[in-house]
């Protein structure tokens, strides 16, 4: 069978229908399909794990709910001794390579397909997210590099802030994508915020 199988984004159909141009009071949104993700769970020696990760990626593993990135790879704290590793433009085998490199120090579970990740950029992003999540997104509290695992509209989400634009990424289990999209669009409509497709995907 010489054929190529195509991965499907959880938000693919919704995003297809968005206009590509941004205007006043719009939010740019796209789905992160080129990244690989994995849950990294320490086997107890957090210091050794942090050292190994620092050696491999130049990343200081955060001990709390933060995201630390080297521009290509990022580790996001989601629980004590548990991180979500995100690799930009990585292939489907990335998680097993990570597992091999952290052998003995961490257990690794591939979650590349488990999460649908929306990147949301724009002035209104903070207000839109705070409609759904009971999290203080004030810049003094939730600046770039902050992360939180919580819920929006009865859906479990992980949210991290990337930059000052502000850009946020929201990761949720992919089966919830349609319901999440409904929440996002109705909330944006209520706020008078338009959704537009992100042009390309920035490397951060």
């Amino acid at each position, binding site marked *: 069978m010489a054929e190529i199988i195509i991965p499907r984004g959880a938000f693919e159909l919704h995003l297809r229908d968005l206009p590509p141009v941004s205007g006043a009071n719009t939010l740019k949104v796209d789905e992160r399909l080129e990244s690989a993700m994995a849950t990294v769970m320490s086997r107890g020696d957090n210091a050794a794990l942090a050292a190994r990760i620092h050696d491999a990626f130049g990343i200081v593993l955060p001990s*709390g*709910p933060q995201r630390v990135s080297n521009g290509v790879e990022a580790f996001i704290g*989601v*629980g*004590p001794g*548990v991180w979500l590793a995100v690799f930009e433009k990585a292939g489907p085998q990335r998680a097993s390579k990570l597992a091999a490199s952290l052998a003995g120090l961490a257990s690794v579970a591939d979650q590349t397909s488990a999460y649908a990740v929306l990147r949301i950029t724009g002035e209104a992003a903070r207000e839109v997210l705070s409609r759904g999540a*009971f999290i203080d997104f004030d810049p003094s509290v939730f600046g770039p590099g902050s992360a*939180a*695992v*919580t*819920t929006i509209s009865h859906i*479990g989400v992980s949210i991290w802030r990337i930059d000052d634009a502000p850009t946020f990424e929201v990761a949720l289990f992919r089966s919830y994508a349609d319901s999440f999209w409904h929440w996002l669009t109705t909330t944006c409509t209520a706020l008078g915020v338009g959704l537009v497709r992100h042009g390309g995907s920035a490397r951060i």
Partner: protein
Amino acid sequence: MRIPCPYCGERDGAEFTYCGDASPVRPAADAGEAAFVDYVYMRSNPAGEISEHWYHGQGCRNWLIVKRNTRTHVISAAMLAKGSAP
């Protein structure tokens, strides 16, 4: 209710699942039926301070021990259950 998760910070109580008094400790495997009956069913049910188990299922997925007053709902402490005695 706001629960101060030691990892995530203070969060709304709706993110947590309650699992009751944290004081009963699972008896040793050979402790006998009566010990297990007591562990599984009997509760002090105090009106006042209680140490209890909450699961931050919509957050860091950790079991917490929360010290809370059942008359006022005031929470005085919260810690990860792993490695803490109730």
